[in-house]
Structure formats: C-alpha cells, structure tokens
C-alpha cells in the first residue's frame, strides 16, 4: 500500500508537487462531506485528508473545531469514516488518508481499524496526537497491513526526533509550518522552509507542509521547496459558507498554485 508515496513520486517526476486537501467527515452532513471530498479531488486536489471528528481536538483552531462539533452533533459515528472512504474511492482515483486523534482508534482497536480502513480503500493515517514513541500498536498494525503512516514534525523537534519521525513515517512527514494550531494565516514565517531542509538532512524523502496555508500564492511558495501543501481550514470555511460549489471553486483556485511552482 503505497498510494500516497506513489502519488508524490509521480508528481515529483512531473516537476510538480501535491495539493493535499482536508475536510472532516460528517460536515455539514455525511453525504455533503463525501460530495465535497469528491469535488475537491475533481478540482486539483491530489490527496484527500479526511478528518475524523473528535470531542477534544487540541491541534485544531476555530474553523475546524466548529465543523467537527457540528458533525458530532449531527450524529457522526466512527463507522461512517470507512463508508466515506469507500464512497470517495469509488468516485475518484486519489489516495484518501484519515487524520485522526488517537483515542477513537484505541477504542475501535488499532488492528481492527487498520483492517477496516484497508478494506475501504484508505491509504493510511495522519496522527496529530500520536508520536512514534507511543505508537507501538499503530506501528504493528500498519506494518501488518501496509497502510501508510504520517507522523508530524515541528519546528521545535530535535534533530534526533526528526530522524525518528522520518524513519518511521511512510508516505510523507507532516511538516508543521509554524508553532500553533490549524487555521488560515495571512503570513507564514520561514520556519517551514527551514524544517523541510532539516527533514531532508535527516533523510526524509517527502515532506508536505501544513498549518496556515489558505491561498494559491502560499501553495506556490510551499511547493517551491516541499513536496506537498496541505490546506484545511480554508476549504472547511469555503464549504461552510458556500457548500460544495464553493469548496470546489476554492480547491480549483488553490490548485493554480501548483502549475508554475517548480
């Protein structure tokens, strides 16, 4: 299972980088969330990052919190994520990663979760509150199933930790652009570029940058040095304000940042 790796490698051969789009399952309702994910894939998003709504999302800012609170209030259940992956994969040929806090996976059972994600056609997991040090269960489940596993690297991470994160991630390393939580920022500092350089020195092949990216110009800037640009809150806000047509348009606009990036 190397969907994400293969996608990033193919884009690199073409001299491009990946636009990675985040949307939570169940927002504003289950079917619209599936339609929205399909729509962004049809409008230039190369890899879908599907968010699993969780009651205590400490890495998320106001836009994503509001969306996931609404999804939970609307009756989101964990089993819905597998159905969402299945439906999206049936309609578009892009890899689908899940972005999930760790407790829902513990309660479902990491092995069972991996099996069900694999069966649904999912590519792997991004785990914002699971560091490799605590990840023995997930390392075992992902090794057995071949699912890709994306750990995070932060500007504050030591070189030793970057090496561990790089060695144990499969697919790419989620390169946290700035010290903070999710949410659009008008300006990104130079930390992402420096961290990407440090990750490459630590041996990482693919570094994709997330947190704060909300415009085509920022996508273009990030893809000038990294392998992917991850956009979340800006897509969620577009979906909240204008539904599927608006999120599709936002994705298309962001994708213009890919064309002349390298």
């Amino acid at each position, binding site marked *: 299972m190397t969907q994400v790796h293969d996608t990033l490698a193919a884009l690199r051969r073409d001299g491009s980088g990946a636009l990675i789009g985040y949307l939570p399952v169940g927002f504003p309702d289950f079917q619209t969330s599936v339609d929205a994910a399909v729509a962004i894939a049809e409008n230039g998003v190369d890899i879908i990052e599907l968010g699993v709504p969780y009651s*205590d999302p*400490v890495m998320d800012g106001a836009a994503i919190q509001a969306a996931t*609170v609404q999804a*939970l209030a609307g009756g989101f259940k964990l089993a819905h994520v597998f159905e969402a992956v299945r439906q999206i994969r049936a309609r578009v040929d892009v890899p689908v990663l899940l972005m999930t806090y760790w407790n*829902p*996976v513990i309660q479902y059972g990491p092995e069972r979760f991996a099996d069900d994600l694999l069966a649904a056609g999912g590519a792997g997991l991004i785990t914002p509150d699971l560091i490799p040090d605590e990840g023995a269960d997930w390392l075992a489940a992902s090794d057995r199933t071949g699912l890709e596993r994306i750990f995070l690297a*932060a500007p*504050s991470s030591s070189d030793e930790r970057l090496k561990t994160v790089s060695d144990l991630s499969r697919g790419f390393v989620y390169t946290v652009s700035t*010290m903070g*939580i999710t949410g659009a920022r008008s300006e990104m500092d130079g930390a992402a570029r420096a961290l990407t350089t440090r990750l490459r020195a630590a041996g990482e092949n693919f570094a994709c940058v997330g947190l704060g990216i909300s415009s085509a110009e920022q996508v273009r800037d990030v893809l000038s040095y990294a392998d992917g640009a991850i956009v979340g809150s800006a897509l969620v806000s577009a979906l909240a304000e204008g539904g599927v047509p608006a999120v599709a348009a936002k994705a298309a606009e962001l994708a213009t940042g890919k064309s002349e990036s390298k």
Partner: protein
Amino acid sequence: MTDLRSETGPYFGAFGGRYSPESLIAALDELTEAWESARNDEAFLDEFRALLRDYVGRPSIITEVPRFAEHAGGARIILKREDLNHTGSHKINNALGQVLLTKRIGKTRVIAETGAGQHGVATATAAALFGLDCVIYMGEVDTERQALNVARMRLLGAEVVPVKTGSRTLKDAINDAMRDWVTNVENTNYIFGTVAGPHPFPALVRDLQKVIGEEARQQVLDLTGTLPTAVTACVGGGSNAMGIFHAFLDDEDVALYGFEAAGEGVDTPRHAATITKGRPGVLHGARSYLLQDEDGQTIESHSISAGLDYPGVGPEHSWLADLGRAQYRPITDAEAMEAFRLLSRTEGIIPAIESSHALAGTLKLGRELGPDATILVSLSGRGDKDMETAGRYFDLIDEGATQL
C-alpha cells in the same frame, strides 16, 4: 513491602505516557529535565520550602473532629487542613513549585486551566508574586458558577479567558490552554493544575503536592502514636488525593480511598465518576480511565462541584485502582452537600464542595470500619467560594437580597 512511592513516570503501569502533538514534545522534554535537576537541587528545594513556610503557611495543621465523627460510626476522624493554606486550597503548593520551575527555565509567561477557580487563583497568585504574565483558561460555565474566583484572578493581575467551546468546563479549558501552549511555547510555561496530562505533569504535580501526606503522616503519628486505618480524599483529576496518598503508598496496612463525584448518580448520565464508570483511553496527553462513548468521544461530566467536574483522572490513580492499592467510590451531589452542611454545623468548618465529597465518603467508611478506626481526611479546600451554590442549594439567601 511494596515500592510504589518511587514511581516517577512516564508510565504508571499501563497508564500515563505522552500522547501530545509533536510541537509540544520539546517543551515537555525541557520540563522533564528541569524538574529532574530541580528536585535534586538543594538550593531550589530550600527556596520552595521557604515559600511553603513563609507564604503558604505550612505545615498545615491537622484537626480532630469528634462532633462530626459521631455521625461516622464513632470512628476517629482527623482532617488535614489544606483549606487553611494561603488562597484557600492545596492548589498553591503546586502553583508555587511550577512557577519557581518557570523562572528556572527562563520563561516569562504562564498559562493555566481552572475548574473551580482554585488552581487559577493559585497560579495568578504565584505569578503576581514573581512578576510573570498570566492567562487563565476557564470554561464559561465555570466562570458563571465561580464568579468570585474570576474576580480574584483579575484582581491579582491575570487575564481570565472564558472558554466557549465544547462543554465549556474544565476539559475544554485544558484544550484551549494546550492550544495556547502549542502557539506560544517559546516564552510560555503551562502550569498544569492536577496529576493528569502528559508526562512529566502527573509526576511533577504529585511531587509538589506530596508534602500534604508527608506532613500528615507524621502529625497523625504524633497525635495517635500510630498510622491511620484509612486515608481519604476527593478525586477529580486527583492532585490532593495523590498528595496525601503518596506518603502512605507503601504502608500496606493503611487503606486508601478516593471519592469521585457521582453527580446525580452513577446510574444517570450526569456524573463525573471516572474510575467507577469509565474505561481506559487517552485524553489530554495521558492514557488513563476516561468517561467516553463507544467511539472514544469524551462524555461530558457533571458535578455540583466545578473542581471535580472532569471526565478524566490522573494516570497514577488508574494504576493504583487496577493494583487494588486504592479504592475509588462515588459520592453524589446530595451526599456531598449533606456532609458540607454537617461539618459546618458540628465543627464550625465550612469545607469546599470538592472536599465535601471526601467527607461524605468518610462518613460511610467510618460506619463500615467501626469505632476502632482512625481516618485521615484531606480537607483540600475551604468553602468560601461555594457560598452562592450552597446558598441556593439550602435556600439560605433571603429572597430579593443582593450582595453589594
């Protein structure tokens, strides 16, 4: 002879750990190393002990309460008076220690979460004493039911941020404090208020609170010539309980009881009895018992006491529960309020509603253990902050009367 006292984390059996965003790991490492060095540095410890003596008023006394004990099957009951500390609860022990540690690592801004407001007041107090910027996150529900503590924190120079997300109580205040910390970790230290959270907080807060049990163990020996039959405390996150339990962990003949908030009853959805009704999971950076649904979503807790209104519990308590070393039992709002009134009327001591859960549990325990038992109770805080809740609960305030 067991050796439970020397456990320092990050794991307490199957519990604990660091389930935190990578962005915080460097800060957690820094705190871990700073505490490792500080706890072995006599100059640091002397400064801490001097503050506890000259500022907090330690050692806190113990008080035997025979008129209250008449209602507990005649068992001998001795209170450890953390309510007499400066700022009114045990929370100041931890806040001062962590503010000293903040100075040691050179940070200039502190943040904290608070439920009842006691930890927020303690942190605001310590920040005022050392001239640090201070921001306190407090659930909006709690700012309403603990308005006086909000005023105290503001008077002390802290900014109080009412948290409007989620259940708008302690758990969401912790989430927002974590988000602040991730963003401002370069100049900011998180003064965590209880023995939960990612390592090193459970061990760090326990180490700063264990003075409660160390003093009380000797005081009870001096008073009675022997160790108590049982030690009791209320448990929300569990810092006063770990503080008083720790000195007794390897005294195998001393039974340990933690009393959790059962709210309207553990068979209703409205309670905060985490160990009684929860199962292991990860919340706020540690693996521990947790109130959660089948999907691992945290369930909102309920207690009349803001300080116990938390769906998690410190990992060391989960470990002690699984080992059978400590027992955890639920106490309802009604039982706690009855004990609140009883201690006030029989002994002239108005306890915090949090501590009243320990008192209510002790009344039941005394009847089980009989008149030969001696029970040491952690009276973790005083009830001044709870007068509005009590006034409404017992209908003590004249209709139309307002406080000017």
